[in-house]
């Protein structure tokens, strides 16, 4: 039976799972959910994932959510996944676990809070919250600093000094790609000081081409839309203070 992946390409962990499968030649059926339309709240999806988040996979009768758990599972369950993604060596694997666990309360927590409260809130029917955005940015920046000085230490181009990417590289880079939707000058302020991080994002993209760009297309489209909006908002400001609407797809 084909692996099913329930995903929204606007969701960073969903993208990580999709890219991972494509890079490793794993056949799957992608079932698209539109979070901006709250499709994750449907009663059908509740049967798949009672916690109503994406991504979720169904492999035969086996259901699983939480992207890190999914990436680990697929690495082990599907033959042919190269060892560097999730090494069988106990010590190497443990270090990757450490990065993945660190991700949640640091990079992810900061990035999600910042991007939501500075940019995406209106698309999800929420208010932007500058205070929460500032707190998010603080956690995000200190996480980037930790990636730069701790996780990217070593000879290789990837996390933990590896010469090839692991599921942790993919997960963290997909998280950071979400910054594409924020205003360019904010993104530069946040990413600019972290040259090694920028290079590592590039290297991870290159290592997972062409799938990386393909799966991120939706994000790039939204980025363009939001940029246009900011431009016309700036122009309109001169004449009036007219209300703006965001596209329905976040």
């Amino acid at each position, binding site marked *: 039976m084909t692996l099913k992946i329930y995903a929204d390409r606007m969701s960073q962990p969903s993208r990580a799972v999709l890219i991972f499968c494509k890079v490793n030649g794993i056949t799957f059926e992608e079932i698209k959910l539109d979070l901006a339309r709250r499709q994750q709240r449907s009663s059908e999806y509740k049967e798949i994932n009672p916690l109503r988040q994406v991504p979720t996979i169904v492999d035969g009768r086996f259901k*699983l959510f*939480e*992207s890190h758990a999914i990436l680990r599972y697929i690495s082990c369950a599907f033959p042919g996944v190269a060892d560097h993604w999730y090494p069988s060596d106990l010590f190497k694997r*443990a*270090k990757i676990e450490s990065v993945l666990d660190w991700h949640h309360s640091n990079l992810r927590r900061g990035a999600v809070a910042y991007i939501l409260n500075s940019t995406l809130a209106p698309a999800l029917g929420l208010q932007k919250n500058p205070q929460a955005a500032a707190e998010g940015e603080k956690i995000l920046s200190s996480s980037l600093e930790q990636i730069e*000085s701790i996780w990217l230490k070593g000879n290789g181009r990837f996390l933990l000094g590896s010469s090839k990417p692991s599921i942790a590289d993919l997960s963290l880079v997909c998280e950071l790609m979400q910054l594409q939707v924020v205003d360019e000058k904010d993104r530069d302020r946040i990413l600019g000081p972290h040259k090694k991080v920028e290079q590592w994002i590039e290297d991870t993209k290159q290592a997972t081409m062409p799938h990386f760009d393909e799966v991120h297309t939706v994000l790039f489209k939204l980025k363009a839309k939001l940029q246009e909006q900011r431009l016309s908002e700036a122009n309109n400001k001169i004449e009036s203070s007219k209300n703006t609407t965001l596209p329905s797809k976040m």
Partner: protein
Amino acid sequence: MGLKVYGHRMSQPARAVYIFCKMNGIEFEEISVNFFTKKTASPVFQEINPMKQVPAIVHGTFKLFESHAILRYLACAFPGVPDHWYPADLQKRAKIDSVLDWHHLNLRHGALRLVQAVALAPKLGRQPNPQVAIEAEKLLSESLEKIETFWLQGSGPFLLGNSEPSIADLSLVCEIMQLEVLDDKDIDRILGPHKKVQQWMEDTKTATKPHFEEIHGVLFEVKAELQKQRLLGANNA
């Protein structure tokens, strides 16, 4: 190969690691690093964990931090650990990983911020923050509800319907134990509605006796100290 565990008994993830080692007869040297007094930020400790947090382990020359990663590692590195803690079966293991990943930004994010915003703020040199407390309690209650109705579904007493505890049970129960430092009426309000959660905590305690109580001794002392302070405060008012 010697195992060193850098931790503190007031740290819920450190307690989980200590209890796990004791339960499984894994010998270790306990090195206490007081995060309340910022000993975690000392240059010496940063050599062990550059993220300046406990727990961290050193096993021979191998250094590791993040409690879930440590628990997974110990379960695999020490031959005598029974399979139920972190099953070799791929699908069983994946489900436990799913709980552990969920833990971070749900149960932990709620419980930790609540406890820090209310009871432990003075110990951390901060002002209590009622706004954060409200948000954190909301997330905590939602997380407890998800444990009650989803993660504790099934026939066994433990998470995922298992008949024996896993590292996820230990990690999550140690997290919830931290609520002990709150006022009793707050604990009742928060935990009261979740009968299955209460039973599961009891079952996890019983399954990890006598180590569970022993490792939580310090927490109970802090609880008593804070209770006394609250009483004094009330009498003075």
